[in-house]
């Protein structure tokens, strides 16, 4: 499970970084979203990967660490708000500058 999990995170991050470097606002927003997904999953895995373990002591033979789950929840909420903000900002940028490059102008060919 760990190997699959790690490959998934690596793939998500790699795609995110690639999209981020495209320097077009929509791609950048998608890239940031992918990276934040990868980070959230990573944070979750820091409580160690276990299946069938409740986050409450005494409910099952093994128990999962509840703290990373709480952290992930916070990170998801913050990431969601930030993504919403950056989408609006990207639209605003498109309206003000007339193109979707992050520098506000098309690169010279």
């Amino acid at each position, binding site marked *: 499970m760990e190997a699959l999990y790690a490959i998934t995170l690596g793939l998500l991050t790699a795609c995110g970084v690639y999209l981020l470097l495209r320097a077009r606002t929509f791609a950048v927003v998608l890239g940031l979203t992918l990276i934040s997904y990868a980070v959230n999953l990573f944070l979750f895995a820091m409580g160690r990967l276990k299946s069938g373990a409740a986050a409450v002591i005494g409910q099952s033979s093994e128990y999962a660490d509840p703290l990373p789950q709480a952290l992930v929840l*916070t990170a998801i909420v913050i990431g969601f708000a930030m993504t919403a903000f950056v989408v609006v900002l990207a639209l605003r940028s498109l309206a003000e500058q007339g193109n979707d490059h992050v520098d*506000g102008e098309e690169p010279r060919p």
Partner: protein
Amino acid sequence: MNHALILPILLPLLSGALLLFAARLNLVHQRLLSCLATWASLPLAGYLLWQADSGQLYSYALGDWPAPFGIALLLDRLAALMLLVTALLASVAVFYACRGDDQRGANFHALFQFQLLGINGAFLTADLFNLFVFFEILLIASYALLLHGAGAARVRAGLHYVVLNLLGSSFFLIAVGVLYGICGTLNMADLARQVAQATPDQQPLLAAAGLLLLLVFGLKAAVLPLYFWLPRAYAAASAPVAALFAVMTKVGFYAILRVYTLLFGSAAGALEGLGHAWLWPMALLTLLLAAVGALAARSLGVLLGYLVLVSVGTLLAGLAMGHVEALSASLYYLLHSTWLAGGLFLLADLIARQRGDKAGELQQGPAILQGRLLGGLFFLAAIAVAGLPPFSGFLGKLLLLQATPAAQALWLWPLLLLASLLVLVALSRAGSTLFWRTARDVHGRAEVDGGRTLACVLLLSCSPVLVLLAGPVLAYCEATARQLLDLAPYLALVSGGRT
């Protein structure tokens, strides 16, 4: 438990929330509420500074959960000092904003309060994840403040700032995750204990997490490869916002100082001094390139942005040396550079308002209506910020140079003096363009506002005050540095909870 500890967080939180509800209220009431809340933070910060000066560490357990398990706030001399820096800067900035800049868009005052909430929280928290949360609060408020009353330049500078910081937040979370995964705690003092006990196979991971934190805080503090967003963003922001942002790079500096003295400080065993090898060259290169940038700036706002970067380089050089004298010199320089940079941003706005369409561009423009007053202020502020006697910049740089050990002096002395010279040349060129190489007539729509001028003078006068009170201020800075480097009391805070 001392409940005054949480007031610097609660006060802006409540007033910010009230201001959101009061958005329909007329502007006079909003301004009154915002000003009162901000000004109240000044005596509060003074009281906390007085408390912290006893040398005791004040820990505040939220929900009364003991330290490593619950979320804790921590007040030491450093946190109290940073609170005072912020409170003074914000008190003047909010007054300046009330003279008209808050009308350009909605909810200025609510955003301003949330920004203070984030900054104060970041200074007070003793928990790494909470530091992340407060960073996000101050960042999202700063995004909105930066774009307040938006124009094309602000949107463009804002997009870079937002995207870079979002990526920075991701790195921050990865670092926090690694630290938690290995140490099983997020309380900074407890983390310091766990880092000290790390086994050799855990140390490379901990070092990676520590350096990731350096990357994140370096982005906030705007050190060399990570500062390119700053000059344009600060130049595009409205004057009171730019003045308040003068403390934002210092939040990054504070975070580096806190993490690298506590987590990877003298108690960290094999990981002691992690990152110092990077900090020193980064600080020196930031110093040099920022001074060159200041020389090349084509508008006053960008020039001031580079001056902020020069101060960041100087501060980090003191931090990288890491001993008591260098740290206390750095802290003294931090007070000077934050307040003076804030004052200069306000002064730049005053000048721009009397130059019509030329605004802050460093080109020949109309004569300035209050040429003598503003020119005089600019002259004095330039002397202070470039580090010439008799003002606080000179004292701060002198202390830092004196504190440099011989081996490092070979690098720091020439670079710091060269940077000061470049800054002086840039400022005198800007000053002569703005005040002397002008047309004969003043601009028809030149604005004069006594309140704005007063706010600017208040911040700039911090520099002579810092010289007059240099004795007690330096004594406090030195006590702060000693407290930071003596880790035993910090570690004792969490020893009760764990076996």
